[in-house]
């Protein structure tokens, strides 16, 4: 079911997407849309394929069936060159930051600007300092990535992702490893970027309250399907067992906590038997 919502139309449209990875079905015929100018959150248990979905949108993976559209251009049908050009309009915060380890913090943030613009160096400097100021790391500009803490690297990566003020920005777990103070700042920053600059944002996150506070629309994925969707308010009131379990973090419910495995007791018994045998 694709819901039409008011606004500027859709930036990304995913149409009956099916994706498999070594026989394991990660997405099974899902359809969803990312409306322009809004913050869409994608949530779901670990290992359901949220990162994979972002990679598919970026065109780094090809779907087995179905299509992805960026403003009616088919992403999965593009040539390498077209993809590179498309990605100039996207920013992505990687789950593990993926900073360039041979460049300083400053050069990391300046990298996309130097590659894609002809701006003079003095201009780039101002821009980089602005971006670093926004994430509170202007003072760390001369450090190397190896000298940063985990939370600091994520904020540098965030500054780099928004360096070119892209149309679409995808945040893969922007809040991991942040203390409560910087968490609050980042939540505001993401909201601000989206509203003031008119970006479209996709947030993948496990932090339910923070994400719900800024997202316009939330999709909950589990076991290859969309198990719940709606505005944060709708989801909070939703009585669907998947949604209920996820939004309130309950360990027992329809979404299993475990990766598919044989019965726990049998696994343990099997190792007992092996020990006796030897």
């Amino acid at each position, binding site marked *: 079911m694709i819901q039409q919502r008011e606004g500027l139309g859709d930036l990304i449209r995913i149409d009956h997407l099916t994706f498999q990875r070594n026989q394991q079905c990660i997405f099974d015929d899902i359809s969803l849309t990312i409306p322009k100018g809004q913050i869409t959150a994608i949530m779901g248990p670990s290992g359901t394929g949220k990162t994979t979905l972002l990679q598919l949108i970026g065109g*780094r993976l090809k779907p087995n069936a179905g299509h992805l559209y960026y403003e009616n251009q088919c992403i999965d049908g593009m040539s390498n060159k077209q993809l*590179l050009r498309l990605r100039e309009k996207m920013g992505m915060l990687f789950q593990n930051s993926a900073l360039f380890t041979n460049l300083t913090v400053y050069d990391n943030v300046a990298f996309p600007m130097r*590659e894609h613009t002809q701006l003079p160096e003095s201009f780039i400097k101002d821009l980089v300092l602005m971006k670093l100021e926004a994430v509170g790391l202007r003072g760390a500009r001369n450090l190397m990535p190896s000298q940063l803490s985990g939370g600091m690297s994520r904020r540098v990566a965030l500054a780099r992702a928004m360096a070119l003020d892209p149309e679409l920005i995808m945040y893969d777990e922007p809040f991991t490893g942040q203390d409560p103070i910087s968490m609050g700042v980042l939540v505001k920053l993401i909201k601000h970027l989206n509203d003031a600059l008119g970006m479209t944002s996709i947030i993948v996150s496990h932090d339910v309250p923070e994400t719900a506070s800024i997202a316009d629309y939330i999709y909950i994925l589990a076991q290859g399907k969309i198990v719940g969707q709606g505005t944060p308010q709708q989801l909070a009131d939703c009585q669907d067992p998947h949604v209920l379990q996820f939004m309130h973090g309950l360990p027992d419910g329809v979404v299993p906590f475990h990766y598919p495995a044989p019965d726990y007791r049998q696994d343990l018994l099997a190792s007992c038997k092996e020990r006796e045998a030897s």
Partner: protein
Amino acid sequence: MMTAIQKLGRSSIQLCGNVGYAGLFLIKTLVRKPRPIKGAPLLIQELYSIGVFSLPIILVASIFIGMVVGLQGYNILSKFSATEQLGQLVALSVVRELGPVVAALLFAGRAGSALTAEIGLMKTTEQLASMEMMGVDPLWRVIAPRFWAGVISLPLLTMIFCAVAVIGGHVIGVEWLGIDTGAFWSNMQASVDFHLDVLNGIIKSVVFGFIVTWIAVYQGYATEPTAAGISRATTRTVVYSSLAVLGMDFVLTAIMMGGW
């Protein structure tokens, strides 16, 4: 018996596949519009880290190789009372064979393995992926400058190697064993042909530079993204490029001796 044949077949198909991938990879890296303004600083930086940092090992190795060839050669030549020919012997053996081959082997160990490990680590930590997601082609930004830097560096290093090795031979022959300086140099000058010897040595080193760097960057780019994958890729770089250098050296020597 059947399984052995099957295994052989499978591994040869795999080998062909890998060579094909490596070839495609090379074509994708090389066949593109040159961007001199952005590319030049990248190339210079890589020339520095690949070429200049390989210089110490090349210098030390070459002086010792020159001295050893000088000593051995003197011993043999003295049996024929032809020690004046030492200059010729040192120069020819170094320029034709030892220079290109030993420099390429050292280069594979010093620069090739470093290239593979660096690119492999960039892949493992998703730096290449994040570059792609920024709309920058890592083949252009990361691979091409390193490839060209390797192809340019090795011939230059080989020339330095040869020059220093000849000086090493001179130190042993003239300073230590007392051959006449004039005889040493004039015999060398008379017998070393620019076209046959020097140029052929340089051609060899260009070919070796191409092969070693190709293997190194491809192994790095195709690394399995784990710590063990990087270590395997680095080992493969050194092993494959050493074998390829020795094999190609035979082929090139045969061609050069044959008709040229």
